C-alpha cells in the first residue's frame, strides 16, 4: 500500500466520519443530561431532507417558483436542517422531560416519523421518488482550500498530507472537528457543563442546589437538535450524493450511538471512535473484495464491517461503559 493510498483512505475516513461525529456529539449532550436519544437517526434524516429541499428551492430560478439565489444556498439548507431537527428534538424533549414519557419510545417514534414523512413530502414537492433535485455549485457545501495548500504541495510527505488530508474539506467537516474541543471545554471547564453533567448523574442534587432540571435538560436536547441538523445537512449537501435520497442516513444515527458508548461519553474519545467507524467504511468502499489467498473476503462483508463493529461494541466487548446514572429516567420530584 503506497503513501497516496493511505492518504486517500484517511481522507475518505474523515469525510465519512463527519456526520457520525456530529450526531455522536449530539447524543453526548443529550445523554450527559440524562435524556437517551435513539432519535438521532430520525433527526439526521429529517435534517438531510430539509437541507436538500431548502437548498434546491433557494437555488431554483424565480421563474420556476424558487428564490433564485446564486450563493449561500447551502447555508440556507443547513439552517432549514437545524430548524427541522430542533423541532423534532423539542418534541422528544416535551415527551421525555415535560411529560416524563418513555425516552426510547419517543425516539423510535421520531425515527419512524422522519423515515416516512421525508419520502412523502419529497414525493409531493419534487415528484421524483422522494428525492430532491440534483444540487450543484453553491447549493452544496464546497471544498475549502486552506492557505498555502497549493504552494506546499511539493514538500514530501507533509505537502500531500496538508493538501489532501487536512485541506480540501467543506465547512461542515471543520465545524465538526472544532466541535470536539469546544464540547470538551464546555463540559469540563464551564458552569454550564458542570450542571449538564450533574443533571445526568443526579437530577435531585441539581434540583436541591436551586437549579432547574427541566431547563438544563431542554438546553441539552436543543443542542443535540442543532448538531443533528448539521449532520443531516452534511449528508445531503456535503457528500457526493448531491441531494436528498430516501433513507440516506442508513443507520448512521445508530452507529453514532454505538460510537458514543464506545467513547464512554467523552468528547475526545468520541472523535476517535467516529474516525474508526469512518475508516472502516472507507476500507469497505475502497476494497470491494480482498483476496487473502486461501479465500476471498466478499464485498458484502467489507461493507458490513462498521455495523458488525457496532454490534460488537454494543454487546459489551469494550469493557464496562458506565452511562450517566440518571440516563433514561424522567425526573420526578418526590419526598
Amino acid at each position: 500500500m503506497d503513501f497516496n493510498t493511505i492518504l486517500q483512505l484517511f481522507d475518505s475516513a474523515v469525510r465519512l466520519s463527519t456526520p457520525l461525529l456530529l450526531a455522536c456529539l449530539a447524543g453526548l449532550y443529550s445523554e450527559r443530561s440524562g435524556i437517551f436519544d435513539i432519535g438521532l437517526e430520525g433527526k439526521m434524516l429529517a435534517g438531510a431532507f430539509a437541507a436538500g429541499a431548502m437548498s434546491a428551492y433557494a437555488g431554483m430560478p424565480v421563474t420556476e417558483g424558487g428564490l433564485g439565489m446564486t450563493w449561500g444556498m447551502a447555508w440556507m439548507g443547513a439552517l432549514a436542517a437545524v430548524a427541522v431537527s430542533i423541532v423534532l428534538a423539542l418534541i422528544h424533549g416535551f415527551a421525555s422531560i415535560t411529560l416524563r414519557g418513555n425516552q426510547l419510545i419517543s425516539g423510535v417514534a421520531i425515527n419512524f416519523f422522519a423515515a416516512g414523512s421525508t419520502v412523502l413530502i419529497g414525493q409531493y414537492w419534487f415528484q421524483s421518488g422522494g428525492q430532491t433535485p440534483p444540487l450543484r455549485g453553491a447549493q452544496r457545501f464546497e471544498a475549502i482550500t486552506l492557505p498555502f495548500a497549493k504552494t506546499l504541495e511539493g514538500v514530501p510527505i507533509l505537502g500531500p498530507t496538508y493538501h489532501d488530508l487536512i485541506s480540501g474539506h467543506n465547512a461542515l467537516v471543520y465545524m465538526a472537528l472544532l466541535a470536539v474541543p469546544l464540547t470538551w471545554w464546555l463540559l469540563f471547564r464551564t458552569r454550564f457543563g458542570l450542571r449538564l453533567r450533574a443533571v445526568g448523574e443526579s437530577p435531585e442534587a441539581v434540583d436541591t442546589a436551586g437549579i432547574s432540571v427541566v431547563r438544563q435538560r431542554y438546553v441539552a436536547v436543543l443542542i443535540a437538535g442543532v448538531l443533528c441538523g448539521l449532520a443531516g445537512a452534511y449528508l445531503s449537501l456535503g457528500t457526493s450524493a448531491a441531494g436528498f435520497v430516501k433513507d440516506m442516513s442508513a443507520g448512521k444515527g445508530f452507529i453514532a450511538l454505538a460510537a458514543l458508548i464506545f467513547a464512554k461519553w467523552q468528547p475526545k474519545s468520541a472523535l476517535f471512535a467516529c474516525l474508526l467507524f469512518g475508516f472502516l467504511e472507507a476500507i469497505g468502499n475502497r476494497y470491494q473484495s480482498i483476496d487473502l489467498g486461501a479465500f476471498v473476503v466478499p464485498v458484502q462483508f467489507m461493507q458490513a464491517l462498521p455495523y458488525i463493529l457496532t454490534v460488537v461494541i454494543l454487546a459489551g466487548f469494550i469493557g464496562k461503559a458506565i452511562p450517566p446514572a440518571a440516563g433514561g429516567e424522567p425526573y420526578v420530584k418526590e419526598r
Partner: protein
Amino acid sequence: MSVETQKQRQPETAAPVAPAIELIGVSKSFGPVQANKDIDMTVAKGAIHGIVGENGAGKSTLMSILYGFYKADAGEIKIDGVTIEITDSHAAIAAGIGMVHQHFMLVKPFTVLENVIMGAEGGPLLRPSLNKARKILAELAVEYELDVDPDAIVGELSVGFQQRVEILKALYREADILILDEPTGVLTPAEADHLFRILQNLKEQGKTIVLITHKLREIMAVTDTVSVMRRGQMTATVKTSETSASELADLMVGRHVTLEVEKNPPNVGETVLEVKNLCKTDGQGVKKLKDISLQLKAGEILGVAGVAGNGQSDLLEILSGINSATSGEVLMRGESIDLTHKASAAMRRERGIGHVPEDRHALGLVMPFQTWENAVLGYHNNPEFSGKFGLADHKAMMEDAKRKIEKFDIRPTNPHLLAMNYSGGNQQKIVIAREIENNPDVLLVGQPTRGVDIGAIEFIHKQIVALRDQGKAVLLISVELEEVLALSDRIIVMFDGVIQGERMPKETNEQELGMLMAGIDPEASA
C-alpha cells in the same frame, strides 16, 4: 401603620433577637391526606432544635416546605423576623437555609469541590469558582472540624465523609440555618459522635440547627429544645433539659410506651443451627464473608451488629436460601443444609427456618397483593391450605389471614387491603405474623423495625421475645445498635465479612460495640 401603633409595638420588635425560624399556621395536604395541620414552631437563633415524630408524622414534609421543595397551602414563614416566600430551593438558599437530606444530594462521580460549587458557581467559568471554593473549604475545615479532601471523588468517600460534604455545601452557601434530616441513620456511632461535635461547633459560631430524627437518645444528647409531631400536628415543644426520652416517646405515640424490652433470662438449650467456615465471594470477586463460624442455640436471641454492608446481609441471604455460599457448611440440628445455588427459601422453610427479610418491600411482601395473599405467601402449598383437586383452599387462607390480623394487631383489619396501603409498621407485622405463625425452629430476622413507628416497634420486639421464650432460636440482624443491645442474649459484631467480636449484652456498651463495628478490637488495642 400609624405612628401610634408603631410606638406601641416598638418594645416588642426591639425584644432580644428575632427567632431564626418562625412558622405560623403552616398547613399542607396531599389530596385527602393532611400532612401538616396548622403548624406553629419557633426556633431561637443559635439553638439546636430537634423535631421528633414517627414515620409519616409530617416532619419531612414540614422541612421540605421550609426548604422550598413543597409550597404550603396556608401559613407564614418568618426567617430572622422577616416574612418570606419560599417558592423553591433557590429562595430557601437565598434566605440562608441549608439542608442535609437523608439521602444525600450529591453527584457521585464529581469531586468534592465540584459538588460544593454546583449551583453557587459565581461565574460561567469553573476555574475561578473552584479556586475560591478550595480556599473557603480549607477555612471551614479548620473552623468546624470538617476536613475533606477537596479533590476526592464523592462516590469513593465513606458515608460519614459524604455527609460532611453535604454540610460543607450548605456552609459554602453561607447558610445560617442548617436542617438535618435523619443524619445518623447511616453512620457508625463514632461518626455520629463526630457529627454532633460538628453541630456543637456550628452552634457556637451562631448557626441555628434543626435536627429531624426518630432517635430519642440523640435528641436528648444534643438539642436545646425539641418539638414533637404526631399525625401532621405539632403536639408539644419543650426544653430538652426539662423532658425525658420516655416522655417524648409517649408524646410521639400519644399513649404510654415502654422503650425497654422486658424479658426474662434466657433458657438456652442445645445448638440448633451451626455455621462452619462460611465464605462468600460475589460476582465482582469481592469477599463478602470470610470464614464465618457461629452457633445458634434454642431459646436464645443472637444479635448481629454491624454497619450496613459488612456481610450481615450476605449471611442472612445464604442462611435463608436466597443466595449461595462459596464454601463452608451449615448444619441444622446436625444435618447439613444445601448452600449451593439449588437451594431455595422454600427448602429452608421445610427445614424449619423462617425468614423476615431486611427489605420487606423487595423481599418480604408483594406490594400490590392483598393481605390474605401476603399472609400465606411461601406457605401456600402447606397441607392446611390445599383444597380439593389440588386447588388452593381460599376459605382456609382467608380464615388464617383474619386470625393473623387479629393476633398481630394489623391495622386496618381488612384482609383485602393491598400491602402497599399499610404503614411500614403494619407491613412488617404482616411479614412477622406469617413467619412466626408457621412455627419455625429458627427465625432469621433482618432489620425488624426499619421504618417502623415506635408503637409497632414495641409490639414486634415483644413477639420476637415471645418466640425465644417458646424455646425457638432467633438470629437478629440489625443496624440499630440500641435494638441489638435491647433484644439480644448474645451479640456478635461483623466487620468487613468477619466476626470482629462476641459480647454479652450485660457486659458491653455502645462504645465498645461501636469500636468493634469500626473494625477496632478494644481489647487488642488496649
